[in-house]
């Protein structure tokens, strides 16, 4: 064995990675070669000192088990927090049950969030109660308050309206074009508006099924590429004009997120047997095929009888 061959294997010898024959050959060489023997001693002590010095940093035997247990706990906690964030403070507590008892009651909850992220805290829209609505409730951060007549709707405030059973009510977006989403559901529905999304939160006592139909309404030059529903983290692509069923579990088991990627105003309208309608006049950021004509803005929301 040459010195080069020996030195190529010294680290393996130190790390106890050599076969018996290889080890014997190496040791035989080192009995004759002082320099290789010295290098071996150095490597052995270097490695031993490294290992000994780092020993306090060794993880415990059940390190992987502890991490996986913490991971599972954290997942459950994360889900719990997310679920609790989805629930509205008033869900199922302060609401009268008559709309459900009537069997055909229609409740519209319209939640208006900051229309532009980072926007001012000033009111961003005005809501006027139309003849179709029997009651409009606003969430002021502590509880639901009935809205009398026209009301300023501020960032983060929520507004709801309870409609007369069987009636169709539409939140008109004024002259703006938009989408019409047909919603047929036994659930009480909350609609939230963020800058790009409208969320429908099922709050019903019983499991149910949403039937959504998304159609264009108003201006013909309005263009929409796609609408996507996200429910229980599963995404459902909705084709324009087709009714799509989404199964819903009771009490905020999930939410339906209608992502309007390109669009301005959105109108929710109902079909039989119950009808829900809501709309937003504020434009969402314009991209792609969305017509520039839709960028205009009315910030005044008004309820009108259909």
């Amino acid at each position: 064995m040459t010195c080069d061959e020996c030195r190529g294997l010294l680290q393996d010898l130190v790390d106890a990675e050599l076969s018996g024959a290889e080890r014997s050959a190496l040791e035989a060489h080192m009995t004759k070669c002082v320099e290789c023997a010295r290098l071996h001693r150095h490597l052995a002590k270097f490695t031993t000192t490294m290992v000994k010095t780092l020993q306090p940093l060794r993880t415990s035997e059940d390190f992987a088990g502890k991490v996986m247990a913490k991971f599972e706990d954290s997942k459950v906690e994360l889900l719990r927090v997310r679920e609790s964030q989805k629930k509205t403070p008033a869900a199922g507590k302060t609401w009268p049950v008559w709309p459900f008892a009537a069997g055909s009651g229609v409740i519209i909850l319209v939640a208006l969030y900051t229309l532009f992220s980072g926007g001012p805290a000033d009111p961003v829209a005005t809501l006027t109660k139309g003849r179709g609505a029997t009651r409009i409730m606003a969430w002021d951060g502590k509880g639901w308050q009935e809205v009398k007549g026209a009301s300023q709707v501020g960032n983060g405030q929520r507004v709801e309206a309870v409609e007369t059973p069987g009636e169709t009510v539409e939140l008109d977006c004024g002259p703006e074009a938009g989408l019409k989403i047909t919603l047929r559901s036994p659930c009480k529905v909350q609609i939230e508006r963020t800058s790009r999304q409208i969320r429908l939160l099922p709050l019903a006592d019983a499991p149910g099924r949403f039937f959504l139909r998304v159609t264009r309404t108003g201006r013909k030059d309005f263009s929409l590429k796609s609408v996507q529903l996200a429910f229980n983290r599963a995404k459902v692509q909705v084709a324009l004009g087709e009714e799509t069923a989404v199964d819903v579990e009771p009490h905020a088991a999930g939410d339906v997120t209608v992502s309007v990627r390109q669009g301005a105003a959105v109108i929710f309208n109902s079909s039989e047997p119950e009808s829900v309608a809501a709309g937003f006049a504020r434009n969402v950021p314009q991209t792609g095929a969305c017509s520039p004509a839709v960028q205009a803005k009315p910030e005044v929301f008004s309820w009108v009888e259909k």
Partner: protein
Amino acid sequence: MSTPKADANQPPAQIPHLLSGEDVDVEDGPTDLILVGRAKAGEPSAFEALLLRYKALVSLVAYRQLGHDEGAEDVAQDAFVKAFLHIGELDDAARFKAWLLRITANVALDHLRKKKHDGVSLDQSGAYAAAESAAAQTIGRGDLREAGGQAIDSELRGQIAEAIYSLPEEYQAPAAMRYLEEVPYREISRRLGLREETLRKRIHRANQMLRRKLRKLWPEGEEL
């Protein structure tokens, strides 16, 4: 977290081999890209494989950031938990290791801040302070020697951790596993998905680089 998109159609890059002058070898085991993909799909074995692959390195980084042993294992555990919880947000799965180490550093910083907030001085939590305190409270010469020895060990540990962390990326995990956990070559190659011959070359090269980096501590001519 936004990271550059990986091209899913391209095989994992072999650039580190080329840069290190190492022979390019065919690698058998799953890459980080594959494991992260499986972990994103919720496959428990993928999480465990990533854990085995990087726990030694994460422990070193936690220690390096904290400056002492105390709490290093907790930080390492929390870093993995945090990474696993948010793995869906990692855009470039091939950068998992860098991402994990960054999370580890952040968790360690949070740990230090919390400790400071709880009224424990960061200096006092260090090994030097522990040694000084032990020296002040003991009279025996042996105790003093032991306390001083602990401080020296702690400093040495810091330098070794730093040296391993400063190795080129592909050598960090093998070196951490070899010197921190004394894992045999075969097991390291299994955990990292590398052929044994590739792994052996990396260990040898890492050893050379570490000896060079730590030369001041252990000159080759001197007995340790």
